[in-house]
């Protein structure tokens, strides 16, 4: 506790304590059984074909809100790129990592990528979705970057193409969802027929949006990591 203001510590403890109190108090809470909640529970499967209620809400009923979350993420990636480009770009030779790190990266990367893809594809059936699956796959790429060096990974995964793909995906989402709103209609949520509940194709357009968001977040995560490494750190 040396050099650490006691007041700050007490404040932090109180703050975290309050948070925990709220959470403990929340254990008695068993979900909103008000009208909207009940309506979602009754109708979501029929309306959207998604077994995962969370996906049903944020990619169907509330798709328009989710689009802005995606835009927020895109602006964050853009900001990282904008403020870091041209700033003390370092040509750091990659530090040779130990064999242990490289071997474990080789072993772990495929399962991590697979987990990411699984979460994206099955987001409407089980917990997961485009955001978490994309971040997990991007973190797997970060693991590779730690083992092999960021520039090697950037070359191997053709970063230039990836970055263009990222903006292409954003454009696609805007066309699919925002354009209809601009024309005075609702976002396109019925691109695919809703199949039988439990099947991979059952979520209708949720699958498409999860896939697009997954690609976007995967590339965005990697871009953020790579720019930080290249301009503010070393690997």
């Amino acid at each position: 506790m040396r050099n650490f203001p006691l007041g700050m510590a007490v404040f932090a403890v109180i703050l975290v304590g309050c948070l925990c109190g709220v959470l403990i108090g929340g254990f008695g809470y068993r979900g909103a059984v008000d009208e909207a909640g009940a309506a979602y529970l009754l109708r979501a499967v029929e309306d959207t074909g998604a077994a995962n209620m969370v996906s049903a809400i944020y990619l169907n009923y509330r798709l328009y809100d989710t689009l802005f979350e995606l835009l927020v993420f895109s602006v964050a990636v853009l900001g990282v790129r904008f403020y870091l480009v041209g700033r003390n770009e370092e040509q750091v030779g990659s530090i040779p990592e130990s064999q242990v790190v490289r071997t474990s990266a080789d072993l772990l990367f495929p399962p991590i990528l697979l987990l990411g893809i699984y979460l994206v594809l099955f987001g409407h059936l089980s917990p997961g979705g485009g955001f978490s699956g994309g971040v997990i796959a991007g973190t797997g790429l970060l693991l590779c970057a730690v083992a092999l060096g960021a520039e090697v990974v950037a070359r191997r995964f053709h970063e230039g193409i990836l970055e263009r793909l990222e903006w292409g995906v954003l454009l696609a989402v805007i066309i699919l969802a925002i354009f209809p709103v601009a024309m005075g209609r609702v976002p396109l949520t019925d691109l695919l027929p809703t199949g039988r509940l439990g099947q991979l194709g059952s979520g209708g357009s949720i699958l498409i949006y999860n896939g697009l968001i997954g690609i976007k977040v995967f590339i965005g995560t990697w871009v953020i990591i790579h720019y930080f490494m290249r301009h503010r750190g070393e690997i």
Partner: protein
Amino acid sequence: MISHVFLLLLLPLLAVFAITRRRRLTAVIGMGLFSLILAAVYLLLNAPDVAITEAAIGAALVTFLYILAIRKTGRLVVAGNETPGLLYREGDKVLGVEQEILNGFARHLGLELVVHFDPEETIEGALLQGEADIGAGGIFSKADERLLQSSGYLSTVLYGLSLHQARQPPRGTTRRRPSYFMDLVEEIKAGQCPRARLDLARFLSVSRLDLSAYRVERLPGSFSYFFIVSSEREELHGQLNSYVEGLKESGGLKKIVRRYFS
């Protein structure tokens, strides 16, 4: 229910653990653990979607980013000239009085000590270009005005060595002082060093050799060993000075010195 409360009680403990650590890596790992346990709490509260995101971002991605930042900024880089007793290598280990002082100083700041061994003449440049934070290795004089010297941690005297019969160097070759002490020792051993100025630590090491071909004299004046810091790093300079002074007052420095020179 008991596991809920247990996990929730762990959260404030881990939070306090993380913010009170001096070593940044430990603090970051504490935060990663915090996120992991928070993810478990979310899972128990029937929110698996949030739990997955919390685990992926809080426990993995953010921890990674912090570690990257620490690798860049969490180090105290020392450019040192190898000097027997003060700063030297034995296998993979770096040892010596200066190593112990600087290691203590780095821990005091919550940083990791990294020592690069450089030839004497490149140390000042490395400091000025910001490639290293502190210059070390038996330094008892400095030339450049853009460098600050720390308060001396050990007093020393200088010895002059000169050959009884100075040979003329072969024509066309300009003699220059060897960059590394080991090269100088080789020269002295071979009786090829016309003159050299050695401080006490280096002289003690050389005095084991056969110096019958040399005239040895103690040079007038008193000196002390110090560290050098770029003048742009005034804060670091102040911290280093107060650390060295504190070590002197507490008697810890004497103990360290006795361990290497007794």
